[in-house]
C-alpha cells in the first residue's frame, strides 16, 4: 500500500466572483522513501493540493471532495483532533517563506520544544536536547547559543534550516515541502537541497516537493506530476518526463527554460497567459495556448491515461502518439543544442 494515495482530489473555493476550482480532480501516490515533485506555474493548484491534504484550508468557503489516504486513513474526512495528531508528527510541512511561518516573538528553541512536546510526553529538558540535536543536524553553527535566538536574528537560509529542523523533529513519514528554496540564493539552495536529501535517506521519509523549478525536480525527484490550471496534465518517473515528455505544456516548460550548459538564440515560449480558474477554458484547459490545438481539444477534456507501453507514465492530451514522439525528440534535440 502506498504511504499516501490521493484520488480525484477537488478543492473549490466560493468567492464573491463565483466558484474558483483551484484543484480539479488530482490523483497521485507516493511510497515510503520516495520523492515526488509537483511542478507547475503559480495558480496551477500545487500548493492548494497540499494544503487540502494537510487540512489547512479555511473551512468557511472551501468545498473538498475525493480521497487522500495516508496509510489507508482518509485525511479529508478525519476529525480535526486526529489531523492535529498527525500534523507535525507523521506528516510535516515546510513552507516557502521562513520569515512568516516562524513566530517572531518566541525563540526558535521554544518553538522547537513546543513541536516536540505536543506529540510526545518528553520532559522540557529532553525536548530541548532533541531540539538542539536537530539544529546541529541541519547545520546551524554554534547551535547551543543560537537555540535561544529569535527568528529575526537568523539569515534567510538559516531560518529555512530552522523550519526544516522543526518539520523533522518528530521523524515524519511524509514531508511536504512547498517551494522550500524559492526565496533563497543558489548557493544556499544547494545547501538546503543537499540537507533534505541527506535527512530523507537517514529517516526514510517520503518527500513531496512542490516547485516551479524543473532543475530542482530533475535533481531530487523520483517521480513528477505536472499540473496546469488545477489539473494533472502529465505524470511519471523523472526519466519519463525529461526524456520522453508527452504533453505540449511540458514541452513548453522545457523549451522556455534558459540553460546553463547551452547557448540558444531564442527561447521557445508558451504564448498567452495562464487561464483564470473562475472560468477555465472548455475542453482541454491548455488549448488556448497550445500550438498543436485540434478541433477536438476545444470541446472534449482529454482523460489522464497511460502512455502506450508504459503503465506508470500518464498524460492527458489528444495528440496521436507518433506526433508526440516526433515533437518530443525535436524538442530534446533543440534543448541539447550546441554545447
Amino acid at each position, binding site marked *: 500500500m502506498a504511504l499516501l494515495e490521493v484520488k480525484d482530489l477537488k478543492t473549490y473555493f466560493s468567492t464573491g466572483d463565483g466558484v474558483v476550482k483551484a484543484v480539479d480532480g488530482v490523483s497521485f501516490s507516493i511510497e515510503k522513501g520516495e520523492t515526488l515533485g509537483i511542478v507547475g506555474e503559480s495558480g496551477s493548484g500545487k500548493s492548494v493540493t497540499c494544503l487540502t491534504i494537510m487540512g489547512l484550508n479555511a473551512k468557511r468557503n472551501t468545498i473538498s471532495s475525493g480521497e487522500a489516504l495516508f496509510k489507508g486513513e482518509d485525511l479529508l474526512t478525519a476529525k480535526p483532533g486526529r489531523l492535529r495528531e498527525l500534523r507535525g508528527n507523521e506528516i510535516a510541512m515546510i513552507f516557502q517563506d521562513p520569515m512568516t511561518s516562524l513566530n517572531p516573538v518566541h525563540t526558535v528553541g521554544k518553538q522547537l520544544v513546543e513541536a516536540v512536546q505536543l506529540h510526545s510526553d518528553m520532559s522540557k529538558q529532553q525536548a530541548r536536547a532533541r531540539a538542539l540535536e536537530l539544529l546541529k543536524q541541519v547545520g546551524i553553527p554554534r547551535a547551543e547559543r543560537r537555540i535561544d535566538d529569535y527568528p529575526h536574528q537568523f539569515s534567510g537560509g538559516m531560518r529555512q534550516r530552522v523550519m526544516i529542523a522543526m518539520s523533522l523533529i518528530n521523524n515524519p513519514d511524509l514531508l511536504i515541502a512547498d517551494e522550500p528554496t524559492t526565496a533563497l*540564493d543558489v548557493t544556499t*539552495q544547494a545547501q538546503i537541497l543537499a540537507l533534505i536529501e541527506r535527512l530523507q535517506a537517514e529517516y526514510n521519509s517520503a518527500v513531496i516537493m512542490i516547485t516551479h523549478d524543473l532543475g530542482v525536480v530533475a535533481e531530487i525527484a523520483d517521480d513528477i506530476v505536472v499540473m496546469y490550471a488545477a489539473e494533472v496534465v502529465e505524470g511519471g518517473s523523472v526519466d519519463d518526463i525529461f526524456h520522453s515528455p508527452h504533453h505540449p505544456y511540458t514541452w513548453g516548460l522545457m523549451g522556455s527554460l534558459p540553460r546553463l550548459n547551452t547557448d540558444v538564440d531564442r527561447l521557445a515560449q508558451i504564448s498567452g497567459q495562464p487561464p483564470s480558474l473562475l472560468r477555465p477554458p472548455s475542453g482541454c484547459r491548455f488549448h488556448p495556448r497550445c500550438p498543436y490545438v485540434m478541433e477536438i481539444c476545444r470541446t472534449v477534456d482529454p482523460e489522464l491515461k497511460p502512455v502506450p507501453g508504459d503503465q506508470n507514465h500518464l498524460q492527458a492530451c489528444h495528440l496521436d502518439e507518433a506526433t508526440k514522439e516526433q515533437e518530443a525528440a525535436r524538442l530534446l534535440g533543440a534543448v541539447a543544442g550546441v554545447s
Partner: protein
Amino acid sequence: MTGAQSEMVLESRASGDELLVVEDLQKYFPISQGMIFQRQSAAVQAVDGVSFTVREGETIGVVGESGCGKSTMARCIMKLLEPTGGRILYRGRDITKLSRTEMRPYRREMMMIFQDPYASLNPRKRVGFIVAEALEVHKIGTPAEVKRRVQELLEVVGLNPEHYNRFPHEFSGGQRQRIGIARALAVNPKLIVCDEPVSALDVSVQAQILNLLKDLQSEFGLTYIFIAHDLNVVRYISDRVLVMYLGQIVESATRAELYNDPKHPYTGALLSAVPVPDPDVGRNRKRIVLEGDVPSPINPPSACRFHTRCPRFVEGHCDVEPPELVSRAGIPSSHLARCHYPLERWPLSEEEMRRGRAVPA
C-alpha cells in the same frame, strides 16, 4: 586601480564606442549611534570599488547573491543614490556630480526596469498615464501625439493598445512587466538598467519577457545592464558578465569564457550550485557546497572577501594580501578574476577544487 584595469579602460576609450564607464564606484551607507548626538559608528560597504565599461549595443549581465550590492550599484549608476566615491562617465561626460537639473537631459537616455511588477506601477493611475509620464516630464509631443505614442508602445511590447485606459490591477504579472518595459522605452533611451526584471515571473512568462527584451534590443539598438541572480537567465541574455561578491567584482568575462571556463572559485561554486534540468547530469554531478552565509558588508573579511567560504583558502596569503581584479597569462585579456589561486580548468573535482596553486598576475 590596477594596471590591467586602467589599461582596459583606456583601451575601450580609444575604441570610442563605450556608452558608460564606471570607475572605482563606492557606496557606503553610514550607521549612526546615539540618540541626540548622532555619530557615525560604522558603514555598510554596499559597493566598494567597482569598475567596468559598457559598450553601446551590448548587454552586461551582473550576477551575485542577495546583499552583494548589485542593486545598489544599479541605483548609483541611475543616480537614484548618491555614490560615496568614484566616477560615472556617460558618453565620456562625468555625471557623478551633476545636479538634478543638469542630470535631466541624461535621464532621457537612461531608464530602469524594476523587479516587482506589482509594486513598481502606481495602482491609482491608468496605464496610459503611467507610460506617458516620462514624455510629459520631458515635455515631448502634443496630447494627441503622446496618446499615439503610448498606443504604439503598448503594441511594441505585445499589449493591446485598446487597454490604454485600464488600471495596473487588471493585468497579470507578465503583462505588468510589459507595461514597465513600455514605460522605460517611452523616451527612446539608449541605456536600460534591468534590475531582476524576470525574477518574479513564472517560467513560461519569463521566456516571453526575455525574448521581448532581446527583440527590442535589436530593433532599437538598446544597451542593457541586466541584473539577476539566476545564472541561466544571465547566460541567455548577456554578452559579458560581471560576478559580484560583497560589493566587489570578483570576475568579469565574456559569456562563453565565464560559463565554460570560470576562474574564480566563487563563480565555480555558483555554477555548480545551479540545478540542471536534466536528470542524467544532475545525478552524476558533484556540487561544490559553500559553507555558511555571505558575511556582513559592515565588517567584511580582510584581504580577499571570499576567503571565509573559499574551498581554496590559504592561510597567511588570502587573508593578508588582497587579490586584484586582473587577467593572467594564458587566458584572454578580457577575462579578469580577483583571486590568488584561480581555477585551472572547469569542471573540477572536489579534491582539485581544494588544491590551488598560486598564479602570479
